[in-house]
């Protein structure tokens, strides 16, 4: 019974923790401009993140080594440092986007300007990282994030033409007023939003934080294989709501208030309350995960003591680096840069950087020196080689498409 509860809790937090500001904004933008014609990318991304999280979780459980320790060890210091620089900067961008997301959601709830909420958000994030136990942090934000199911409810209450939606999803066509290059640019953005590298740093480091062993592999596999696809349904619902309400009205999403507009229309004031709680929880949870990930990557590369399971004094450089990252986040946001814009760039850069973390994990998960008998099976390897090609193509195509489309505008 206790075990069953553990599995249920794990799945629910995986669902609630799946969506972050990147998924919210990108899915809404895509829904409002392309309808459901890009929904297949969410599917591709969800399968990809399941595969990637499964491999890195298995590496962590079998060898006790987290992602960036492995990257440094396998790539050596030079390529490892290049990898660290890229991954760390993109992660910092995501931290900034999530912090901005919390502040924007609080602005919608309170009508106090978001810049005033930023210090509040940062202090709250830091306090949780400083004091709160890892499992409580994970479970509370994950469960509150589940309120985003209101997007699914709202989609039903909007009584859409299901046949039309299914047609958009199953026979994807580029809408007349959009170009093929912006269609593919947003395909990469959606892919990057679903397969953000920080999720993998966090997932594998979290496995070490919670002291996983190979005995916990079954549970972790269920969390991933059930939780992430259900989280993907939330993503699709966000796009669906935008496709039903915003696309016909000709509103292309550029702000968080437009993301939640369809919920207000479909599910009223109560729905609005739920969605605001959900967005604050999802962005807050993701802010914690990305901030921790920045500490994890640095500490694992340089071999510092790290982890929330230690007293802060026993992981001094780890905690100091996270404080500095949060301060950088404040500094960037206080320039008045639009957090939604930061988000849109961060998901594309995530897709660009993805091969850097994917490849070393794929290689190590085949190495019996680390994995013992838990090396990848044949089916996993075939699928992961297919994904290596997909990830490489997305990464290489992203920058040319960004230039051609003027970042999708």
């Amino acid at each position, binding site marked *: 019974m206790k075990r069953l509860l553990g599995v249920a809790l794990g799945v629910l937090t995986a669902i609630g923790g799946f969506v972050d500001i990147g998924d919210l904004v990108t899915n809404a933008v895509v829904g409002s401009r392309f309808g459901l014609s890009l929904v297949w990318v969410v599917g591709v991304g969800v399968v990809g993140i399941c595969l990637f999280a499964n491999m890195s979780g298995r590496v962590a459980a079998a060898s006790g080594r987290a992602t960036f320790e492995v990257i440094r060890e396998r790539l050596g210091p030079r390529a490892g440092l290049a990898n660290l620089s890229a991954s760390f900067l993109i992660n910092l961008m995501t931290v900034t986007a999530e912090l901005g997301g919390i502040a924007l959601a609080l602005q919608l709830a309170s009508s106090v300007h978001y810049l005033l909420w930023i210090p509040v958000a940062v202090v709250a994030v830091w306090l949780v990282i400083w004091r709160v136990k890892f499992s409580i942090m994970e479970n509370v934000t994950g469960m509150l994030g589940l309120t985003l199911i209101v997007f699914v409810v709202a989609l039903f209450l909007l009584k859409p033409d299901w046949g039309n939606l299914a047609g958009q999803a199953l026979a994807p066509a580029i809408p007349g007023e959009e170009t093929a290059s912006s269609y593919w640019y947003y395909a990469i953005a959606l892919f990057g939003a679903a397969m953000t590298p920080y999720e993998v740093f966090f997932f594998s480091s979290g496995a070490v934080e919670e002291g996983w062993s190979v005995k916990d592999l079954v549970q972790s596999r269920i969390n991933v294989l059930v939780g992430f696809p259900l989280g993907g349904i939330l993503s699709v619902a966000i796009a669906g709501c935008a496709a039903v309400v915003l696309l016909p009205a000709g509103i292309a999403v550029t702000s968080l208030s437009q993301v939640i507009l369809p919920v207000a229309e479909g599910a009223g004031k109560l729905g609005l309350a739920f969605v605001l709680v959900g967005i604050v929880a999802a962005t807050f949870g993701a802010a914690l995960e990305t901030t921790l990930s920045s500490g994890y990557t640095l500490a694992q590369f340089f071999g510092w003591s790290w982890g929330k399971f230690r007293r802060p004094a026993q992981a001094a450089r780890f905690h100091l680096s996270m404080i500095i990252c949060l301060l950088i986040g404040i500094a960037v946001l206080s320039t008045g840069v639009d957090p939604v814009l930061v988000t849109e760039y961060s998901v594309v850069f995530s897709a660009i950087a993805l091969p850097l973390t994917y490849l070393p994990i794929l*290689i190590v998960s085949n190495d*019996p020196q680390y994995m013992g008998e838990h090396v990848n099976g044949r089916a996993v390897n075939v699928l992961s*080689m297919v994904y290596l090609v997909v990830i490489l193509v997305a990464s290489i195509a992203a920058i040319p498409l960004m230039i051609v489309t003027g970042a999708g505008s």
Partner: protein
Amino acid sequence: MILGDLLGTPVYDSDGGRLGRVADARFVVDGAPQQLMAEARLLGLVVSPHSVSSFLGYERTGVNQPWPLAQMLEWRHRGSFLVMWEDIAMIGEKSVRLREGFTAYSPALDGAGQE
């Protein structure tokens, strides 16, 4: 000396013919016993004619998954060999010279790469 300085150094035979570069150094833990682990003495150097980014040591381990990645990485190290300490004539700042009539051994490690 520092090992990092030695890695990547060009390796020549006694006639000055270039053989490749130092890709790795192999040690064997069989020296004088100490409190914890015995002394580790230099057994020899792994020389690779094409690429020195050790990158996972596919040429030395039995790992052959995932196809075709493992095969590609192994191919980059085709022709690498191990030369014993006894066959090294001189180690310099910019070159390593082997003795005349040195023996090139297979760089393969036993088992799963962790003998």
